């Protein structure tokens, strides 16, 4: 039996009737067409499907869409504002925090969460908090450099960094 859900995704409200077994990642990709959230392993290991659910990083291949009823969701599509890259996107570009880019949306959403929790992480803390995101290309070195740079820029820019999803900031 289909069930009605209401969610706010990147600030826009949506109401749909979905099958209970529909996973949040499929809801985002197939129903809303937000294909920036990737599916890597599909078994909860790789983190490519990471989005923010009420400000917390989750693997959307392990959440049912019905479990997200009433929640605020942020995906990689919500990072840039008015055509301007989010500081995290900018830093990943400049520091070569990506190669093929497959893992990148998930890594960046995890980064939003980790920097909201701790704006001044050490490299070791960055590695710990990104443990759930696998990257086959970069060797992680440049990912850590990108996160560090993004953190520095977001601290330096005004108290409320532009473009960080509101619910992440409120955490």
């Amino acid at each position, binding site marked *: *039996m289909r*069930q009605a859900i209401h969610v706010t995704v990147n600030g826009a409200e949506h109401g749909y009737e979905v*099958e*209970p*077994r*529909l*996973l949040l990642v*499929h809801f985002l990709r197939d129903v809303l067409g937000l294909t920036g959230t990737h599916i890597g392993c*599909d*078994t*909860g*290991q790789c*983190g490519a499907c*990471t989005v923010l*659910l009420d400000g*917390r*990083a*989750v*693997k959307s*291949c*392990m*959440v*049912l869409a*019905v*479990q997200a*009823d009433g929640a605020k969701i942020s995906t990689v599509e919500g990072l840039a504002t008015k055509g301007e890259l989010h500081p995290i996107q900018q830093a990943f570009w400049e520091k070569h925090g990506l190669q093929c880019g497959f893992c990148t949306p998930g890594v960046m959403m*995890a980064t939003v*969460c*980790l920097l909201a929790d701790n704006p001044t992480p050490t490299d070791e803390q960055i590695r710990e*908090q*990104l*443990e*759930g*995101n696998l990257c086959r290309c970069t060797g992680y070195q440049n990912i850590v450099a990108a996160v560090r740079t993004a953190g520095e820029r977001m601290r330096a820019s005004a108290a409320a960094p532009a473009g960080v999803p509101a619910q992440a900031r409120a955490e």
Partner: protein
Amino acid sequence: MYPAEFDYHAPTALADALHLLQGHDGTVKVLAGGQSLLPLMKLRLADASTLVDIGRIAELRGIREDGDAVVIGATTTYRDILDSAVVGRRVPLLVDTVRQIGDMQVRSRGTIGGSLAHADPGGDLPATILAVDAQMTAAGSGGTRTIAARDFFTGMLTTSLNEGEVLTSVRLPALDQARTGSAYLKHRHPASGYAVVGVAAIVRLAADGTCQEARVGVTGAGSQAMRAGGVESALQGKALDDATLADAASHAAEGLDLLSDPYASAEFRGHLAQVLTRRALAAAVARARGGPGA
């Protein structure tokens, strides 16, 4: 990948959840954080005709102090536990353990009750729950009962919860007492992150610095988590020098039905249990000497 079809209910009252768990034919399962159940259902290793999502039942979530104990609702997430100043101060061993579970995303969703009810042999929490002598509360159609940690885990992926019963809360005696220290150490599986072996140790010193009480829980090594009774009795009343700790730790794998897999043989697991027990005891003793709850 997606799970086979099921009906879904998300009651907001525990009584409604209990009713749903009785009132169906076929396989009716509780859904908490979904971090074990949903991957299993996607792989079709588990199936359910109906899922009763207990995540919207407010009374099952939260952390409160109750005299000399901290009571944690079953659907309280790992993340909630890490964010709790009360847990950090009163049961630092739990924070030490939860920090090492899975990854940031899994900790956002996974719950204390889900981990215990699932009773994965590589789960981290069972070692700690055993070492602190926690008490589980379960509710079913016949009412509510409490289960001591020692009686809770009954085998691989099995607990003493009955069909249709919901684990509602976990009561952990506080550890912030004089001359008491604790530590959780694990050997992480390099791919899954689960404990190949994990050891939780609590040491309470007498005024003269000898061991008044030691409690040790071991997970991962065997098909179910167990207290290491041989280690505990070998420490009772002893002066805690390195040789004594090493001697006591040599009993760590006694009575365990050691698991074996391509990553870690039974022999390696038995060895890890001893090494991690010695190290966890040494860390707990150092903290016990450092001050209350250190």
